[in-house]
């Protein structure tokens, strides 16, 4: 075996080369961290601005403005926000005319929200720990709550304030969104604070949900929760296939206001030192509700499906008629107890949920207020006495010929109210049913069979047939 003069030669070269590479990376890393960091440039620029703005006495202090990482640590909010490293002049009114990041916070908001007490992320979200803008904004980084766009920042006011109590113009979108939520009848399907329907998901903490908790398969554009909300308000079914939610008719500004409201819904406990007095009052009001306003309740919980309640409404998504519950013809045939029972129990098996304390979360007082509101359409009339129930066999024949088209052969009503429903059977009296057959229902597809050749005999037969679906007990035994 011929041996080379120095077997280690190759290893020496390798050591030399790899050590040189290591050195290069070490030096590069040191430069990147200690010299090239963005925040150093910002602070140096800020120091120059500070010097030019300072009076003679402050100039020396300005010159010694230290270049260092700054942070606001707020243990009560669990925040360590380093935004002030670059936004060093955020609470200095002299910087109002500067460009970002040196600019003073707009609207002098920091005078009432001192940055040392509140930090930044409690209002703006984003990654407070970061030292560069991309990672602080955190939209494309692994971070649950990226920086809110300025147009939506109002959302976080709701954490400590009651939006209705804020002075005019301080959180207009949030207050508007809150009103829209009630006006557009969102509560018909969505629970909030235990009150609302159950067709859609509860919205209590929707502002704390991360983007991963939304169906984003069809979400175009930025993958943020606010983009999701805005697009979802425009086209619910396009974003969530199979969604029952109708596209609410909203202007772009209304969409934004509702998005702000959605983002504001977060029930995370904030240290009580931080709650505004009105927020505490709002919490108190939730426990001790003021007298219920029937019209507002109707708007919030019923209008999404029943609309004005004056007409039967064909609902495309449900593929059936939604009853006209404020229609004079209906209200005058029902007594208050019947109405209250229908509201409390709903129509099990249909899209109409129950609204009593255990289901929709409405208190007895609120149900009564709703009944009183419905009652405004017409006083109860004296119903003609119900005929004696007739023959089930003949009634069945008539029912199948005349009624089953809308109410269904089995009485479960593919498109019209379900007569075989236990709550209907319990709440409706014979007189009510007979009157409805006889006089029909104005402004709904239900015709007046009394004018179409039904005499008392036919009505009695159909009544008997409808009553065979009655469960034991209730008014049906009359």
């Amino acid at each position, binding site marked *: 075996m011929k041996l080379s*003069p*120095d077997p*280690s*030669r190759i290893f*020496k*070269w390798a*050591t*030399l080369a790899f*050590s*040189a590479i*290591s*050195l290069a990376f*070490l*030096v590069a*890393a*040191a430069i990147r961290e200690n010299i090239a960091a963005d925040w150093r440039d910002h602070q140096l620029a800020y120091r120059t601005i500070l010097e030019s703005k300072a009076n003679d006495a402050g100039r020396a202090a300005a010159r010694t403005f230290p270049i*260092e*990482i*700054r*942070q*606001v*640590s*707020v*243990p009560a909010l669990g925040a*360590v926000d*380093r935004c002030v490293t670059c936004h060093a002049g955020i*609470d*200095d*009114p*002299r910087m109002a005319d500067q460009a970002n990041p040196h600019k003073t916070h707009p609207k002098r908001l*920091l*005078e009432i929200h*001192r940055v*040392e007490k509140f930090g930044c992320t409690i209002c703006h979200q984003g990654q407070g720990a970061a030292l560069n803008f991309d990672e602080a904004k955190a939209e494309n980084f692994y971070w649950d709550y990226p920086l809110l766009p300025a147009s939506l920042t109002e959302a976080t006011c709701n954490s400590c304030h009651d939006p209705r109590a804020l002075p005019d113009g301080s959180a207009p979108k949030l207050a508007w969104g809150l009103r829209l939520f009630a006006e557009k009848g969102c509560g018909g399907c969505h629970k909030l604070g235990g009150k609302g329907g159950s067709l859609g998901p509860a919205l209590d903490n929707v502002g704390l949900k991360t983007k991963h908790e939304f169906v984003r398969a069809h979400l175009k554009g930025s993958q943020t929760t606010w983009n999701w909300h805005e697009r979802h308000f425009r086209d619910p079914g396009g974003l969530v296939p199979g969604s029952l939610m109708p596209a609410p008719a909203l202007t772009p500004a209304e969409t934004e206001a509702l998005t702000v409201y959605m983002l504001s819904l977060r029930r995370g406990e904030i240290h009580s030192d931080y709650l505004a007095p009105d927020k505490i009052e709002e919490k108190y009001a939730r426990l001790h509700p003021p007298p219920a306003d029937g019209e507002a309740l109707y708007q919030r919980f019923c209008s999404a499906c029943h609309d004005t309640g004056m007409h039967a409404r064909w609902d495309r998504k449900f593929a059936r008629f939604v009853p006209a519950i404020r229609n004079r013809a209906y209200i005058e045939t029902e007594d208050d107890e019947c109405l209250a029972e229908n509201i409390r129990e709903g129509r099990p098996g249909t899209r109409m949920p129950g609204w009593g304390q255990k289901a929709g979360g409405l208190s007895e007082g609120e149900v009564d207020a709703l009944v009183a509101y419905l009652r405004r359409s017409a006083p109860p009339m004296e119903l003609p006495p119900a005929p004696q129930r007739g023959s089930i066999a003949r009634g069945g024949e008539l029912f199948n010929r005349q009624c089953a088209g809308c109410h269904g052969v089995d009485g479960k009503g593919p498109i019209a109210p379900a007569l075989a429903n236990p709550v209907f059977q319990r709440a409706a009296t014979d007189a009510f049913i007979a009157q409805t057959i006889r006089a029909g229902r104005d402004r709904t597809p239900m015709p007046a069979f009394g004018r179409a050749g039904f005499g008392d005999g036919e009505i009695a037969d159909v009544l008997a047939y409808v009553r065979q679906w009655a469960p034991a007990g209730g008014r049906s035994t009359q």
Partner: protein
Amino acid sequence: MHEQETKRRDVLGLAALWSFVSAIGVALAGVARLPKPAVLPGPLRVFKLGDPAQFAVGSVARIDEGNFFLFRGERGFHAISSVCTHLGCIVAHTEDEGFSCPCHGSRFTADGAVIAGPAPSALPWLELALAPDGQLQVNAESHVPKGAYFQV
């Protein structure tokens, strides 16, 4: 021939060895910086105390979260640290006797000078300023010479 080989090998070997050593040295220098925190944890040691007018002339306020006393006298505001300069216990203040430390018996006059005990130096006076938003601000990290009263 043999001599030359030895010589060349030495140069290469030494260069390799020293480049390795210097790489390790630079790495260690970088590593040595790690234990010293770049930014101190915990809340800011600059305290905003609100409108200066709320402190009456002749009053003493003990600011617990900042470990200092705030005085307002005829000549203006001054703040004195309540951290004993001996070993860091918190001194107590009485109107007549100045400050006294419970741990090792150091005693200080009303303006912070040592009069008894092991404390090596006077209690420092802290820097006061008016924040841009008009609040009285005490920087507990920054000292000023004794007698530097702050006029609003």
